[in-house]
């Protein structure tokens, strides 16, 4: 009993240290804090947008068409005369949702699959690996377009396209980790004293795999944001009646070739910031949790 509590305690102690203790861990700790701060600010900004935004983000002709930032429109207007500031405030929601849902799907499918397959081993493992390799070798673009065409555009479907491409990565990383852990002596010892497979898996193996999962998840988040922007670029984004940074980034390209920098730059910076936030968290955490780097 006590042992179990201690194991849980150790996971928590490594995953969610208090902010104060984070700062004690040097620059890596600071990276995590900054990353979290960026993400939290963006989430909050998107949440309070309906109350704070000065204009309706999709209403056209609220201002002159494609006008540069001014006092009235601090971030300028789009080619349809929409207010950029309002669109920036509202526009993160699609990306946040897409990345969150895709990470969730990957987690729910990829992690158990990898754990199970590697632990059981044998032919089951070989079969799963083969299938996952095939999925990995399938161009993600084709999957994305196929899903969008069959299921229609939308947040969940974009997340699904991204998740399908990422699950192999989760699977592979977890599988290689489990493969090396399961040969360790203390796991053998546990088996010899008759521990059930599920307690071995969750008490001994899973906690050691968590750091890699966390790292991959944050990279997944960042990549999902960028992939969502890329999918919108080729026309697979959400409907035009939903303000979206990726949409403005795509449309802003046309304006940029004509000298209008504001429609592409502000969403571009926001997308970079969001991706950065997730990456900082991932970088920092991977350094903190990587035992080989502890002096």
């Amino acid at each position, binding site marked *: 009993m006590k042992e179990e509590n201690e194991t849980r305690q150790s996971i928590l102690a490594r995953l969610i240290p208090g902010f104060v203790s984070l700062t004690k861990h040097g620059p890596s700790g600071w990276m995590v804090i900054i990353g979290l701060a960026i993400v939290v600010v963006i989430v909050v900004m998107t949440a309070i947008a309906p109350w704070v935004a000065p204009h309706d983000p*999709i*209403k*056209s*002709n609220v201002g002159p*068409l*494609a006008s540069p930032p001014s006092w009235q429109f601090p971030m300028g207007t789009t*080619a*349809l*005369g929409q207010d950029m500031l309002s669109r920036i405030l509202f526009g993160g929601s699609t990306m946040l949702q897409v990345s969150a849902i895709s990470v969730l799907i990957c987690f729910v499918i990829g992690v158990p699959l990898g754990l199970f397959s590697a632990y059981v081993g044998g032919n089951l493992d070989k079969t799963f690996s083969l299938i996952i390799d095939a999925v990995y070798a399938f161009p993600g673009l084709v999957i994305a*377009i196929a899903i*969008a*065409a069959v299921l*229609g*555009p939308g947040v969940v479907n974009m997340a699904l396209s991204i998740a399908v491409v990422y699950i192999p990565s989760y699977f592979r990383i977890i599988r290689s980790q489990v493969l090396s852990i399961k040969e360790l002596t203390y796991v053998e010892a546990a088996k010899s004293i008759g521990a059930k497979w599920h307690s071995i898996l969750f008490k001994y193996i899973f906690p050691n795999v968590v750091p890699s999962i966390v790292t991959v998840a944050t990279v997944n988040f960042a990549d999902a944001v960028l992939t969502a922007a890329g999918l919108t670029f080729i*026309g697979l984004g959400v*409907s*035009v*009646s939903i303000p979206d940074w990726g949409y403005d980034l795509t449309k802003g*390209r*046309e*304006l940029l*070739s*004509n*000298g209008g920098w504001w429609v592409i730059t502000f969403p571009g910076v926001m997308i970079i910031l969001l991706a950065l936030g997730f990456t900082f968290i991932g970088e920092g955490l991977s350094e903190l949790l990587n035992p080989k780097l502890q002096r």
Partner: protein
Amino acid sequence: MANRMETIIIVLVLISIVVSAATVYYSTNMLANITALSDQVTSLQDALEAKLASLETTLVVGTTDSVELTLDPAQAYDYFGWNIMQQIGDTLVSVSPGSATGTDFVADLATAWNASSDLKTWDFELRSGVYLSDNVEFNASHVKYSFDRAIALIPSIPEGAPAGLGYDLIINHTEVLSTYKVRFVLNFPFAPFLGILATRSSAIVDPKYAPQAQVNYTASSARNSTPLAFVGPYVLSEWNRVAGRDLEIKLDANPNYWNIASGYPKIKHIIFKFYSDSSTLRLAIGAGDVDMAYRQIAALDAQDLETNPNVKVWHGKGTFIQYFCFQTKRAPFNETKVRVAVAAALNRSTVTETVFLGTASPAYSIIPPGMLGSTEAFSILGDANYTYTKSLLAELGYDETNKLTFDLWYESSGHYPQSDAQALLYKEALEASGVISVTLKNADWASYKLNRDQEIMDAYVYGWYPDYLDPDDYAFLYWASWLHTNYANSTQVSLYDQARATTNTTLRTQLYAQIDDMAAEQCSVVPLFVSTTLAVTKPNVYGVYLDITMDMRYWLISK
């Protein structure tokens, strides 16, 4: 020591990223000199060729189009394929450059023509002294061969232009009356026959290169890649494709051109270069990488380039229209009043001004303005005529608390220009009435077409490019079965059939006006706007005609 090395490396790498571009530029100059000095004749020749190209003899045209399939008149049905074919081949008649109506035909390979009174027999006198390659003189047998071939290939090329235009349905047979006289016998009286003869699918082929099987693109030989007789102002000298898309097309002045006395073509060499989308094309013309940019120029680009002293923007009429379609087989659009109410709430000028920045004009008839039979029929409904909308809908029980709700679909893969922006504005205009609520839905082109055929869309936006310039190729859109609006009107159809059976322009105008008036009462299909054509060139380029045919006649262009 080691630390300093590292710092130096970092600094060097970071600087080199910025400096490498400059290095290439300068080293290009340096190496070019060294090459000339060290007597590498090939390099010198190429450099010389490039310089020559920049003189008045070559025009570099940038475009986002690409030949879709082949340059075979029996198959090609795409704009760009037809455009290239127009430069190298010829038809019996063509439309005069600068035409406003699309029906002022001029002599091309035919010098005179007349039709029987029942419009079923058409005789043409052909031009003498026109030579195909190898000194074979053009005569009536070539005309017969071309049309017989086109019709014979219809079963094996069902998606081609002759099939789509109905050559086998229209033409009964072609007769050689004498060396320079040919006769077409039609199956029914067809007034717009000259229009059909002016299209690219009626171009004359050279039997030597036109077997009775379609001719495909041959990578190594431009001459063997098209069956067309090279009787036009240019010959195809090079055609390179990669993965089904054009990489390079080169046209050179045709020494055997029958109209060479006119001084055309002015520019002796044309090089086409293919860009992926309008933004990259716009950058290319802005940077001076090409002399001319044609299709597609976005409205924003045109607006910005107007003020750019390094380029000239050309505007012209267009014939591409877009229109609203309603699914009339079920609620809510089975009620005529609902369709009329929605049509009245539309605001065309906001769309043409906001989305297209004036490069499109509102359309109040399915026939483009300037063409025979065009009217302003739909203007009786007004634009953003909310009082009318509200009163009509109120009769059916719709008001602010019980709004008319429906889905408006648009295609989202770039098949039509700015579909998403258009849809947004239509939704706004309709919802501004206060009694309508619109949900926007989108699908990529293939799914959109499927949805149309399966009739699952309540309201959708569609577009139309004409094959030939006659109201005959527009008016039927009001009831076209392939639009799947499930709307039929036998009165309109009979008016239409009467109009195509006479050449009396007054009568035809009356008939089309009647069709328009009925359409405005029924609103099965509501015309939205007509596009204009845009081209951008360097300031030293002249002779760009952007007329109602939307054909770019490159032989008229000069520097």
